[in-house]
């Protein structure tokens, strides 16, 4: 399943270009680098810092209907775990197809144990997680 990934800061597109061309770490970057100069979009997602004019470290997963399904915001000094972001992304896609299932914390990919909440599972979550 493909997603559109866009990275966003309040830098201009000109600075994005300069950074991508000069930083070796970004040599293989293929996703669009968005510029939110005015902070308008950043404010909508609650990541805009009015004191500094910069964005906090935010990651958001949105489904094709436009519903925000996952939000994570870290302060400046903590990086995000991309594996965890992709886990949430994959889980959301899986659950959009299997709407009666939920993905527990240890779910990583299709085939891992999911739960189907029902009366019979009340008080039996441990057994349900253990079935594999």
């Amino acid at each position, binding site marked *: 399943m493909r997603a559109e990934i866009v*990275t966003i800061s309040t830098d201009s597109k000109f600075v994005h270009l300069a950074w991508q061309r000069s*930083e070796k770490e970004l040599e293989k970057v293929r996703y669009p680098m968005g510029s939110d100069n005015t902070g308008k979009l950043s404010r*909508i997602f609650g990541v805009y810092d009015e004191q500094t004019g910069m964005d906090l470290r935010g990651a958001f997963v949105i489904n094709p209907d436009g519903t*925000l*399904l996952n939000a994570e915001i870290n302060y400046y000094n903590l990086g995000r775990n991309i594996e965890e972001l992709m886990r949430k992304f994959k889980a959301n896609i899986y659950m959009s197809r299997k709407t009666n299932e939920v993905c527990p914390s240890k779910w990583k990919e299709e085939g891992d144990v999911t739960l189907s909440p029902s009366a019979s599972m009340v008080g039996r979550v441990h057994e349900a997680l253990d079935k594999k």
Partner: protein
Amino acid sequence: MIDSIPLKVGQKVPPFELDIYDPVKEDFGTFSFDPAKPDQKWTILFFYPADFTFV
């Protein structure tokens, strides 16, 4: 300036456009998000403080 109450999980993201630098085309462009588009894909937005720092 629009009212800026941040979105919560479960709410609808309004359509938006962003100026972009596209490293594949090595050119500037526009990224547009609009759930009304029939081909709108899943979207991941990844905000960070500033270019030329760690992400």
